[in-house]
């Protein structure tokens, strides 16, 4: 097998370290949050109005960051409660959007879990990089699902535990045809692209700044899943499955299309976004 399994494990471990580093930055935000509380009561350095405005905006931004990062890190309720304020404005539409987003994540989790039971994805005949990618992507979708659930609760909403009903039909229809890695990759692209488009669209639609921030922090990651899956699809289609390795070797053997197939548009489209309330609890 082309893949050095040990090296791949190392790479995934490194990526987790990077993730953990990002989460550690939360501590800085917490410190600044406390500091800003003191600062907002200070006077003299700035005019009264400006000082108030500065403190309010800074606190608001810090709260936003705390929630975004905190939710991602699975922070405790007490810490997240630090950012519970009246300025956390939202609408019932925001809750519905978050529920829809979570429903998409629920479906992604179920689909990748199913994929890993297939011998050519999760079994001994699978490409090692594809298998590792599916496992890691599944873990990331679980984190996204948990983050959307936490955000919904913070808006006094009920988390959605069911999959998006329309996309579920797509998966059900595809299930009997999942007889090859290429078929699974094609289905995964459809789901990931749908998720990305939905999040891009709802990032602009969400009124609650924390919900917007969270959704924005996830949409690019789903877009990355799309990108790699499209590259994998191109390599499988060109009968270059052996080049699905980290790194592809030799690099010069990569077909030209592998360099651009992962990002087909300069602006991520939204025409395929799921309706905002499609996955909402009714």
């Amino acid at each position, binding site marked *: 097998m*082309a893949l050095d399994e040990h090296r791949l494990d190392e*790479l995934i471990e*490194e990526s987790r*370290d*990077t*993730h953990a580093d*990002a989460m550690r930055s939360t501590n800085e935000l917490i410190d600044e949050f406390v500091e800003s509380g003191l600062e907002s009561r200070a006077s003299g350095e700035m005019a009264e109005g400006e000082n108030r405005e500065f403190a309010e*905006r800074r606190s*608001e*931004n810090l709260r936003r*960051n705390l929630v*975004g990062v905190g939710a*991602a890190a699975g922070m405790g309720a007490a810490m997240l409660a630090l950012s519970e304020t009246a300025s956390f404005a939202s609408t019932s539409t925001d809750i519905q959007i978050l529920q829809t987003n979570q429903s998409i994540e629920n479906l992604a989790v179920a689909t990748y879990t199913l994929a890993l039971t297939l011998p050519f994805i999760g079994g001994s005949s699978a490409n090692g990089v594809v298998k590792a*990618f599916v496992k*890691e992507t599944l873990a*990331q979708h679980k984190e996204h699902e948990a983050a959307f659930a936490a955000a919904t609760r913070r808006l006094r909403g009920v988390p959605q535990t069911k999959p998006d009903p329309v996309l579920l039909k797509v998966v059900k229809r595809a299930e009997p045809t999942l007889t090859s890695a290429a078929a699974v990759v094609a289905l995964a692209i459809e789901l990931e692209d749908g998720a990305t488009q939905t999040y*891009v669209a709802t*990032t*602009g639609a969400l009124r609650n700044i924390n919900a917007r921030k969270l959704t*924005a*922090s996830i*949409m*690019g*990651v*789903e*877009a*990355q*899943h*799309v*990108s*790699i899956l499209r590259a994998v699809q191109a390599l499988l*289609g*060109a009968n*270059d499955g052996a*080049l699905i*390795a*980290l790194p*592809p*070797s*030799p*690099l*010069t*053997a*990569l*077909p*030209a*299309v592998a*360099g*651009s*197939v*992962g*990002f*087909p*548009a*300069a*602006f*991520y*489209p*939204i*025409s395929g976004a799921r309706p905002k309330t499609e996955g909402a609890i009714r």
Partner: protein
Amino acid sequence: MRNSHKDATQMQISEAELTSLTSDLNDAHYETLSNMHATRTSWNPSQTPEQIREGFSRRNFLTRSSLFAAGGLLVATTGAGASTLPRLMRTDSPALVGRKATSAPLDVRVAALAASLENLAVSTYGSALSAATTGKLGAVPSALANFVKTAMAQHKDHAAAWNAIISSAGYDKITAPNAVIGASVAKAFSKVTDVPGVALLALSLEEAASATYLEAIDVLGVHQAIETAATIQPVEMQHVAILNFVLGRYPVPQAFASTLGAATLAQGPSVKRR
């Protein structure tokens, strides 16, 4: 086994397939682009006094640590190092001395920063293509050459999108690369001698752009500007993923995108009213 025997410049799919794929890419690209134009033309500069100020965090965007500050460029490409960069970005940085405060609306300043970063990406990729043409980088894989050409074209479109917003607000377009960050990039580029070096430099630029757009989504006030940032940020993230793949790094290293390494408004260009 890997296809180790394949020629560097030999395409692995037929010309017809590649042409078809490229055509599909262009169709998708221009379909989206037309939507962007429609969005931008509906932007109303009269919204700026209240909306642009709403939600903006001056301190964060003005003083947060920057990927490109004071030579941090290549350090940040080492993954974990990006999150441990010192907060070098200060308003008393030599590169920033003498910069005057601007009274332009904040969304316009953010758009100007974004446009200047896009211009910098275009010029850097252009330099990479020139270096490849002259043989400075050795044998260039066709996939990477294709990446550079496609990404460069997309960055041009991104710059145009931001400049449309700037222009519609009554300000001059930003046509030059970001000068502050460009100095660090030029220094780094002068040391590049091979393809992985170019890929690492590109990765730095793309990561910084992604982080900056995520930050921008958090602080922009005008809806259309938010939409512009939201449709571009995932594309920059896709550039990052492919570069990670090519470099042999795990391509999607984090479950949540980060603002670490975002450029700051203080690094942005001056904006002038027409």
